């Protein structure tokens, strides 16, 4: 198995407080990394610093096959989804999905198909602002169905989803892993699905 991500001696501070220090791990293709920790432990900060949204205090992040510094390269190989769903309330579900795909540079995306996959068919012409939080989340999650990125970094992907939604998402995870991808995620719920290679990483108040 090849290594997708290699993280060495990562350290981060937020508002002067050390969240984590000397954090090292590596991720193989086909593995799932579940990051655990209490509220405020720095899970989100860790994920955000992996994709360069938060400045690193120390440490190196190597994306296989490229160095973190080569911005163009790794951005194509990673997909990040944070707490916020980047769904426009004024646009309909269908428009949201289509424009989201186009923003990633893809023109050949069947938005109807995607909506059907995430179970939103029938709601396609409602403004997203009128949908529930879980439904908006599903709109955002359609990205997972066309993304070419091998590494997914997902911050609380199950938030607001019902059990069916969670199952659907985990099925998609399984496909991704099977295809040789890798996933880093944070979640307060335990995964109901057991991937073959599941790593756990616990962050708490500066120590590991």
């Amino acid at each position: 198995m090849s290594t997708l991500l290699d993280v060495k001696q990562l350290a981060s501070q937020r508002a002067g407080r050390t969240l984590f220090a000397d954090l090292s791990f590596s991720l193989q293709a086909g593995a799932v990394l579940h990051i655990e920790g209490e509220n405020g432990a720095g899970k989100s900060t860790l994920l955000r610093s992996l994709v360069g949204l938060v400045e690193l205090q120390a440490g190196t992040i190597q994306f296989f096959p490229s160095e973190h510094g080569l911005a163009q390269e790794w951005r194509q190989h990673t997909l990040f989804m944070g707490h916020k769903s980047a769904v426009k309330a004024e646009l309909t579900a269908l428009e949201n999905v289509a424009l989201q795909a186009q923003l990633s540079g893809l023109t050949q995306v069947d938005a109807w198909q995607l909506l059907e996959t995430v179970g939103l068919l029938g709601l396609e012409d409602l403004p997203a602002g009128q949908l529930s939080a879980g439904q908006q989340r599903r709109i955002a999650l359609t990205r997972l169905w066309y993304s070419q990125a091998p590494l997914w970094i997902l911050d609380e992907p199950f938030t607001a989803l019902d059990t069916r939604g969670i199952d659907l998402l985990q099925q998609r995870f399984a496909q991704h892993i099977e295809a040789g991808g890798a996933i880093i995620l944070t979640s307060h719920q335990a995964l109901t699905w057991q991937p073959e290679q599941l790593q756990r990483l616990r962050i708490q108040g500066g120590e590991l």
Partner: protein
Amino acid sequence: MWRWLHPYAKPETVYHLLGRWLPWATAGAVLILGIGLVWGLLFAPADYQQGDSYRIIFIHVPSAMFSMSIYVSLAIAAFIGRVWQLKMADWALAAIAPVGAVFTFIALFTGAVWGKPMWGTWWEWDARLTSQLILLFLYIGVLALYYAFSDNRTGAKAAGILAMVGVINIPIIRYSVEWWNTLHQGATLTVFERPPMANSMLFPLLTCILGFAFLAAALIMQRMRTEILRQELRRPWVKQVFGRPAATGERS
């Protein structure tokens, strides 16, 4: 070059280095500026047209000169901070900007006070004064943005971008203000465009300019040290600077 600079890029090293230079800069400022001002006020001859009122020149010209170059140095620091990701260059903004703003204010105020006996009015929309006024606004903008963020580091970066945008704009602003001034036939303080100044006035002026340079350096160094401490307050090395507190901690 870069390798040589690197060891100095540690906040702790810079803090102590500045601490070593600061007394010299302060002494230089006090001494040179003192000599320059006494020379200018007491020994330089009176101007044949403006009488003794021209003596304002000994603070007006140096502060006006440095108000502009300090803004440029602000932008250079911001540029270094962005391109080489040197966080200390970002912090330097907080040290440099207030000094520049005060210099600009001094240039503006002395210009206006000088204008009263010359033009008969406290405020004239003269090209130079107007440019100074706009420069003051630019400084205030940078400072306001710097302190608007609760996270100091974000504030420093944002203010840096603004400073760079501002420095690109400065020549355009200057040119536009000059053009506007000629369009409206405003008054111009012509003291600088006269035939070369007599040496008896020029030398004290040059001394004052040098003194202001030292003064700016000393003020900026002092502020830079404070800024380093602020940003690094929770780092271990700061403990040695402030000393461990007496083991009181008893709650009354």
